């Protein structure tokens, strides 16, 4: 391994990073995930931690760009240079840039993450069978709205699992329109456009207006790449047109004819000779995770290694089961030392924790007087600090409550308050099941709403209504559980499920119009599969496993931490 001259390194271990923009090649959540995994490669073997910022200046600023992208080292189109990064320091130092003329994937071809449909955002499964025919790309067959879709299992005919593929008709990214879909035709500088365009931009990115008149509304977004779209050339984003004519000869597939570099290309119209519209054909692409892990090595202070198998070797090669080479480990530990302190507590087997079947109320040594139904712990040996993942966390009467398998704990709101519990759910709310997916207290009426599976209960004091089905609230039948609830002013509550959320008008007991919406379109930077969402002391918390992402009132993630240490104070 080699370090930069002077052993350039960060003078702190809590490194921050920020993703400035996204590539149209992959869904933003996949890009976020690839970068997070790439940082984890290094945090696994050092005392370094990496925290993502959503705005402001971070130590490592990450961006995608093409050719001349604002620093002295322009990229060079498809292939060749993939990315570069600067050694640790102020300003541009520490930053990582990725060439967006590359086809960014996870290394084995286009990754198509679906939206909507009934597959909860699963990836497309290629090939998939539809009406007996095999499809290797997204298709608009079977639809009249021209939206491309795919099966998310091998056989749509059998499993009926599907989702919609990236399309500007479905959504945009970046820009200022909150991810709204393109509106065609739209007017830009007095001219009408029927498709995404690069006009008006110098960076080559395709965009569209999200209203019918950009000149008037100035609302726009960037167009996601369809998986069949060509890369580079002069028709980026268009699909190949087969057959096409080149030099008088007809071609039914991509060809390297006419090029000295062997790269496969195609025409995007039926006649290249007439129209001269072309682009490179989609290929396996480059693994954003692997390239990012390499670049972040530079951003932390490692130069190129001469060991071919090392991550810091300058050439790209795809490996399926990546693990950091000894040479890279030695290099980074030379700069920052080994990982110190204990590893995070591994998930505890659920046998540590009494099952609801074993916690028959009649056997538990707790008082049963109705007047004191809530305040006597059932068994102090059941330790909240050993619970790897709570069923739900919510605020009741200003106190944070943690629910798990028939029990709950509460954290007094006063400073330095100690965790109290566990208490039995069945003692305080006798009609509730053991597992509570979500709960909230209506601020106006002080009624408590509890959700479990496809049902909900409403408690007013000790009176209960329910169980009732989620559909009674106006949620679609496809919603099988509500995983988080967030008060939005008096009388409105956001209900989270999967990657979506709905706004409930509590008084009218109806879902407001315009919902569902994508969680990540409104709450950027938090996991879109959070299993607990709640508001506490002015912050919104999204929990996944034992971690939480805390969002401030400006919807910026200002902290990522452990539920165990920060909320339970273990």
């Amino acid at each position: 391994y080699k370090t930069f001259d002077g052993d350039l390194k960060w003078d702190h271990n809590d490194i921050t990073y920020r993703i400035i923009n996204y590539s149209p090649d992959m869904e933003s959540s996949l890009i976020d995930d690839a970068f997070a995994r790439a940082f984890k490669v290094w945090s696994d073997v050092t005392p370094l931690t990496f925290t993502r910022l959503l705005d402001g200046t971070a130590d490592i600023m990450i961006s995608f760009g093409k050719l001349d992208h604002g620093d002295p080292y322009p990229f060079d189109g498809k292939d060749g240079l993939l990315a570069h990064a600067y050694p640790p320091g102020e300003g541009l130092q520490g930053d990582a840039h990725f060439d967006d003329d590359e086809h960014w994937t996870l290394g084995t071809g286009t990754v198509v993450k679906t939206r909507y449909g009934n597959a909860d955002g699963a990836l497309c499964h290629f090939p998939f069978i539809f009406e007996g025919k095999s499809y290797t790309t997204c298709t608009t067959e079977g639809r009249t709205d021209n939206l491309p879709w795919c099966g998310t299992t091998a056989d749509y005919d059998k499993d009926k699992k599907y989702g919609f593929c990236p399309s500007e008709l479905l959504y945009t990214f970046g820009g200022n329109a909150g991810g709204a879909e393109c509106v065609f035709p739209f007017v830009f500088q007095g001219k009408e456009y029927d498709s995404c365009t690069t006009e008006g931009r110098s960076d080559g990115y395709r965009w569209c207006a999200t209203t019918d008149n950009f000149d008037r509304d100035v609302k726009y977004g960037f167009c996601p790449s369809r998986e069949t779209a060509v890369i580079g050339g002069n028709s980026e984003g268009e699909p190949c047109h087969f057959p096409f004519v080149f030099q008088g000869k007809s071609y039914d597939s991509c060809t390297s004819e006419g090029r000295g570099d062997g790269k496969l290309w195609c025409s995007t119209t039926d006649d290249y000779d007439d129209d001269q519209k072309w682009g490179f054909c989609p290929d396996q692409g480059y693994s954003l995770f692997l390239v990012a892990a390499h670049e972040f090595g530079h951003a932390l202070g490692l130069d190129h290694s001469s060991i071919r198998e090392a991550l810091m070797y300058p050439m790209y090669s795809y490996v399926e089961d990546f693990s950091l080479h000894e040479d890279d480990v030695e290099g980074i530990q030379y700069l920052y030392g080994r990982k110190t302190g204990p590893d995070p507590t591994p998930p505890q087997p659920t046998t540590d924790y009494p099952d609801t079947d074993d916690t028959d109320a009649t056997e538990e040594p707790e008082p049963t007087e109705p007047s004191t139904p809530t305040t006597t712990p059932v068994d102090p040996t059941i330790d909240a600090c050993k619970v790897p993942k709570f069923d739900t966390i919510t605020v009741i009467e200003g106190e944070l409550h943690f629910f798990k398998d028939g029990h709950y704990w509460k954290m007094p709101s006063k400073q330095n308050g100690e965790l109290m519990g566990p208490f039995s759910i069945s003692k305080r709310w006798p009609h509730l099941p053991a597992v509570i997916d979500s709960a909230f207290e209506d601020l106006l009426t002080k009624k408590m709403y509890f959700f479990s599976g496809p049902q909900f209960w409403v408690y007013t004091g000790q009176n209960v209504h329910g169980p009732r089905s989620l559909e009674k609230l106006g949620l679609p039948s496809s919603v099988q559980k509500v995983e988080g609830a967030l008060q939005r002013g008096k009388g409105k509550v956001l209900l989270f499920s999967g990657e979506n959320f709905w706004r409930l008008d509590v008084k009218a007991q109806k879902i407001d119009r315009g919902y569902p919406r994508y969680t990540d379109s409104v709450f950027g930077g938090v996991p879109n599969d959070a299993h607990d969402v709640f508001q506490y002391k002015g912050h919104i918390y999204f929990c996944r496993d034992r971690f939480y992402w805390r969002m401030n009132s400006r919807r910026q993630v200002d902290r990522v931490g452990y539920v165990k240490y920060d909320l339970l104070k273990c």
Partner: protein
Amino acid sequence: WSIPLKPIFVTFPGDTIKQMTDMELAEDYLKKFGYMQTLQRSGFQSMVSTEKALKRMQRQMGLEETGQLDQPTLDAMRRPRCGVPDVAN
């Protein structure tokens, strides 16, 4: 009789990839990644000979150090890679 076809190369509009000869590719590569130019301690720049630069590049890449622009070296130069120079300037 089969007559070898002469490949026809065309200039594709909007193509950002420069069509280069092997020698042009090598010189560009050696310069871009720091093998060709080294800053002397006294502060002035001196050009390193192509042979020396090639050897240095071949050593870094784990190739046979021939100092010649042979096929394995050209293949290595055509592989996708990180843009950070191998030899610091």
